[in-house]
């Protein structure tokens, strides 16, 4: 079997003011026909850059500084743009990450498809239309002849990605490069799309390169895998072999960092290869420390109790009530969270789990229903002073570490703001001592206090967010997808930190995630949400072993089966 694509010693450099940055360093990989190659690595590993240099779409000022790319026997890395244009689309198809932005919203999908077909295959309009229908049919879009006249916004995310795949296949290419094709999609759709790519690969005898950060995706679809770290290829081989017996240390830690869905571990495996992560200093005798000085004297059995909570958002605004279209984001939800418990909330995007968290935190006002925090009804208008006192005991950690810190303030100002505002220390000396404690407590060096948020990585920013949340001396911590924007290796560190905090400060935790293995490791009890409703609430182990609700079973069935490869 001769290789369809061969990349030999490819190097890509990005010249910048601060010198050359080698994004890709002497990488050699190859893909044969009918084979799926997985290219895996964490953000900044250079995996997308490899994909882009094959189709000559490197973002300037990046350029290929060495090596060669041979496609179907011809060298393509030195081709002019005009020559390359004939190969792109016709011989090499590309699937991009976000189906929201990779289709033109002003053109019907029939137009977009036939435009590509006419350009690449040089066929007439009517036969292009015929071919479009066939293509849409082959990617599993029902009633393709009627859907031709639809616009991209009339499709769901998964369907749109199918259209993108159809577009990539339009020129009847030999090689398809898929750059994070399922990252923007929900788990249930992810599986369908991966299955589709795999079957198309076998049917049409395509070479496929899948670029992803998710080892689960690799396990699902790839025949061979190439692991990249820091611009270099660290390991390559058959999927089963690499995942079962990784040779390189990086691969080993990367695989072990993926939380397992089948057994409960004490701690997450930390990828020490990547992050020379700082040891967390523990505050000796936390109960004496400033952090726990205001623990409520009156002990409550239930920390949060939510009764028949509902909220609606208007999707279409109108003057007349009957013309408005409302979406029930949270629909008649009741949950009870015990003090000191770690409660998980799981569901796909749009299931209303974040909205529920924000309702509890008080960022939204519900349409109906009640919320009691430590036995106090926080929705009633009277007793405002008590309500704000109770609300302060509840802090939140947000998903996006890049927008959750004010970029104009130093870390010190960010962390000290709640302390200063509530005057919860005696004097400024104590304040600065407490801040130093806090920042060390979340595993950051004290010198970071004088810096600004942009000087930190995503994981470090998330630690700062945690320090800020702790500065209000919370008793309840709401974590809204705290690690889904982070790499696996960093994820493990943050989750371990949260786990330790919960134990040491005996916090009540509401943990929201779409990632079932993470939920399994973090939570005592779990609620499964779908379309704004709670499907099932159960003990974590019980839910994972014996799910009762149909939807829970469905979700669990979609979990990437890493265990197949684990020894």
């Amino acid at each position, binding site marked *: 079997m001769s290789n369809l694509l061969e990349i030999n010693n490819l190097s890509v450099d990005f010249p910048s003011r601060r010198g050359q940055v080698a994004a890709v360093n002497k990488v050699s990989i190859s893909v044969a026909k009918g084979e799926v190659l997985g290219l895996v690595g964490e953000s900044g590993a250079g995996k997308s850059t490899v994909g882009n240099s094959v189709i000559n779409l490197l973002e300037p000022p990046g350029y290929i500084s060495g090596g060669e790319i041979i496609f179907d026997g011809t060298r393509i890395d030195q081709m002019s743009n005009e020559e390359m244009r004939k190969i792109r689309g016709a011989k090499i198809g590309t699937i991009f990450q976000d189906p929201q932005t990779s289709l033109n919203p002003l053109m019907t999908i029939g137009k977009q498809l036939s435009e590509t077909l006419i350009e690449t295959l040089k066929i007439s309009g009517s036969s292009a239309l015929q071919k479009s229908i066939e293509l849409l049919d082959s990617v599993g879009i029902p009633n393709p002849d009627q859907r031709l006249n639809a616009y991209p916004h009339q499709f769901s995310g998964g369907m749109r990605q199918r259209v993108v795949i159809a577009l990539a296949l339009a020129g009847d290419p030999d090689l398809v490069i898929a750059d994070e094709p399922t990252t923007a999609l929900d788990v249930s759709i992810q599986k369908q799309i991966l299955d589709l790519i795999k079957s198309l690969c076998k049917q049409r005898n395509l070479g496929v390169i899948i670029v992803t950060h998710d080892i689960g995706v690799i396990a699902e679809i790839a025949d061979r895998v190439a692991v990249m770290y820091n611009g270099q290829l660290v390991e390559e081989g058959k999927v089963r072999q690499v995942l079962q017996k990784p040779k390189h240390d990086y691969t080993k830690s990367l695989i072990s960092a993926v939380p397992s869905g089948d057994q409960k571990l004490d701690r997450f495996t930390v990828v020490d290869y990547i992050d020379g992560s700082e040891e967390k200093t523990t505050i000796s005798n936390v109960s004496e420390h400033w952090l726990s000085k205001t623990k409520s004297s009156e002990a409550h059995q239930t920390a949060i109790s939510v009764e028949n909570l509902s909220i609606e958002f208007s999707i279409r605004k109108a003057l007349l009530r009957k013309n408005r279209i409302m979406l029930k984001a949270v629909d008649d939800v009741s949950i009870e969270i015990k003090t000191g418990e770690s409660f998980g909330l799981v569901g796909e995007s749009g299931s209303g789990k974040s909205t529920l968290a924000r309702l509890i935190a008080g960022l939204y006002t519900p349409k109906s229903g009640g919320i009691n925090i430590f036995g106090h009804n926080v929705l009633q208008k009277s007793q405002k002073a008590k309500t704000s006192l109770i609300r302060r005991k509840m*802090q939140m950690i947000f998903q996006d570490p890049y927008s*959750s810190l*004010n970029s104009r*303030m130093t870390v010190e100002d960010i962390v000290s703001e709640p302390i200063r505002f509530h005057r919860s220390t005696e004097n400024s000396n104590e304040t600065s001592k407490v801040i130093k404690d806090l920042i060390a407590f979340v595993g950051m060096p004290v010198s970071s206090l004088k810096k600004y948020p942009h000087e930190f990585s995503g994981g470090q920013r998330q630690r700062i967010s945690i320090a800020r949340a702790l500065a*209000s001396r919370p008793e309840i911590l709401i974590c809204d997808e705290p690690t889904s924007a982070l790499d696996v290796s960093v994820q493990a560190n943050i989750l371990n930190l949260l786990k330790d905090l919960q134990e040491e400060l005996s916090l009540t935790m509401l943990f929201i995630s779409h990632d079932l293995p993470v939920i399994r490791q973090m939570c005592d009890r779990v609620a499964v949400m779908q379309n704004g409703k709670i499907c099932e609430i159960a003990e974590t182990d019980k839910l994972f072993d014996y799910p009762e609700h149909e939807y829970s079973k469905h979700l669990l069935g979609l979990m990437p089966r890493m265990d197949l490869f684990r020894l």
Partner: protein
Amino acid sequence: MGKINQKSSRWQRFLDNDIVYSFLTTPGAMIAATITLIAITATFAAPLIAPYNPFDPAQISLWDGKLPPAWTDGGSSAYLLGTDNQGRDMLSTILYGGRISILVGIAAVFLGMLLGVTLGVISGYFGGLTDTIIMRIADVQLTIPGILVAILINGIGRATLPLELREEFAIYVVIVAIGLTDWPQFARVARGATLVEAEKEYVQAAKLIGLPKFTIILRHILPNTLRPVLVIATIGLALAIIAEATLSFLGQGIPPTTPSLGTLIRVGNEFLFSGLWWITFFPAIALIILVFSVNLLGDWMRDALNPKLR
């Protein structure tokens, strides 16, 4: 020793800053900044560097009136750019006049910015009816040509002032008139930036801490909306200088006794057909160079502060 090191590293860090870097690699921006800087220093140092004081009657002699520039026939080396009809040295009047123009421009932009940003941020943060009312007023004002609004406000301002104070307060009336014309631009930009920032999670975190709305707006939202406002302010400065010149040219602005560039152009306009071209020409050139370089600076700033535009 330690202090010096720290200073140099701070200087290094300043040079390393992306915006500074972009400035140092954009020749247009550097030239524009130099010209603007020279214009501002020269006009503000006018009493020190100008050859004459055009407001001192002792230094003006009507005998020297209407002299052409020094290098033309009949020019006098005492008056480089010639003199106007009252015998005032053109170079000195331009320097003094430029000072008034720049002052009025800056003050008007500040007034407009203060008003516009306040209303815009309030509008964006609170939304709903407040937003509708403020932004509809801005929309209505934007449908009327700015200069007409300025003339209207200017006229009302003058009419309400007692006769003897009109001359004295003319300059403030002009500032208010231009400032009140400017604000919708600032309000729109500030509102847009506020809408973006208010959605961000750090604002929600601030709400959870329990900070009052006013503190959130002032400490968290306002500093993050200032970048686009700064761009609008720079371009607005050029527009305000033009607006002042237009008002003065129409005889609605700064009185001829304390001339601004616009007033000088108007005075010169009366003599244009009798061949005294320099009375209009030089102030006009000064105005064009000033406005052009401020505009260029604003354009560069827009690009540098918003890398997505490039």
